[in-house]
């Protein structure tokens, strides 16, 4: 992978997270790189990130808790190449008050799946258990949201859909009528998105960051 291109895309994504109001200081974005990952330093505001604020971590390096979580996810989900760990207001409400976020909207069912689970802690095992199988996203009790993707663009879409799904769930509950997408409908949409609708776009985006 082209390191500079990966960093350029992560900077662009970080700015989009800020523009969408789904970030705060300490949020982390990473991309798989060689035997490890490239990740932003946690002490720089996302909107101010430059190429100098990214570090490369390989297996065996000393890692902080977020880096260890990202590294473990790349080890476990070998077909995922990008991770966003961010802070979004409605996901925060779900994190503090619910055990899972059900799909009430089609785009959530397509991209995230039938539900997004809430991990009890930000520990590696708790989070990994919430992104098993085809799951692409989860919320963490601490208030953070996690989205994975084949590319950073897909992870960003996951972050957006997760927050929009959380807003819809919170507000539909307030209105007294949260209606889940049916199990079979959600499965069909999730499979079509992964196997058909997104294949071409994701392949083109992955090609774009090759060396």
């Amino acid at each position, binding site marked *: 992978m082209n390191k500079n291109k990966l960093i350029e895309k992560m900077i662009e994504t970080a700015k989009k997270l800020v523009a*969408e109001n789904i970030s705060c200081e300490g949020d982390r974005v990473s991309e798989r790189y060689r035997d490890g990952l490239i990740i932003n330093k946690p002490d720089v505001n996302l909107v101010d990130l430059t190429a100098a604020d990214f570090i490369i971590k390989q297996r065996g390096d000393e890692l902080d808790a977020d880096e260890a979580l990202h590294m473990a996810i790349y080890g476990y989900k070998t077909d995922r190449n990008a991770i966003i760990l961010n802070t979004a*207001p*409605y996901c925060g*409400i779900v994190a*503090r*008050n*619910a055990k899972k976020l059900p799909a*009430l*909207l*089609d*785009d959530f069912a397509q991209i995230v799946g039938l539900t997004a689970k809430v991990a009890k802690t930000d520990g590696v095992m708790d989070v990994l258990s919430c992104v098993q199988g085809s799951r692409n996203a989860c919320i963490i009790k601490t208030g953070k949201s996690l989205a994975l993707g084949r590319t950073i663009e897909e992870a960003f*879409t996951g972050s*957006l859909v997760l927050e*929009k799904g959380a*807003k*819809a*769930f*919170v*507000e*539909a*509950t*307030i*209105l*007294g*009528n*949260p*209606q889940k*997408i049916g199990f079979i*409908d959600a499965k*069909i*949409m999730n499979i079509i998105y992964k196997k058909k*609708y997104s294949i*071409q*776009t994701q392949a083109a985006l992955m090609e774009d960051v090759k060396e």
Partner: protein
Amino acid sequence: MTHEDIRKLTIETSLTLVKENLVQGTWGNLSTRIDEDHMIVTPKGLAYELLTPEDLVIVNVRTLEYNGKHKPTTERKIHAAIYALRPEIKAVIHTHSMWCSSLAAARIGIPEINDEIKNIVGGDVRVGKYGLPSTGSLTKNTLAALEGRKACLLAGHGVVACGESMEEALEVCRIVERAAKDFITSKVKEITSDNEVTIESFEKAFKEKIKK
């Protein structure tokens, strides 16, 4: 208006939708009628910021045959069916805007809460029954909910707005999104008694509801 003008206006409107946060990413789609049997629609899966006039696709509203370098939006059936049924309609916009999506998730319509909803949209905004995206049942349910109106919600999905011009369709999008926001925040106020609604008010109202 020439086809070229229509293509340019469609792109300008799509960028306005992005700027006003009425669409995100590649979600949503727009179309304009060009004659009795044809419409110009946005293509499938291309980001609005990257669209050029040549990317738009001409589709026959009766046969759904299309002509262009890209495939048309997967929701072309809804656009085509509206033009086929409603001769006065010249533009259709489908978005997944945030506040309308919450109502679509609750499958609750927008009551006639202000003059804009009454006079411009044509009355309360109904919710069409659920149908899987791109299917005939979603199209059928949308047409039913849209009868006599210029907007409807699609259960679990988003919103469709239309107008006698692209400018009017865009205005309808804005009106229903504002009304959806007002409707939801008024419910939060009712539950929390907060004068000013903040994100904390939403959490307070949510807790109150899940406690019951």
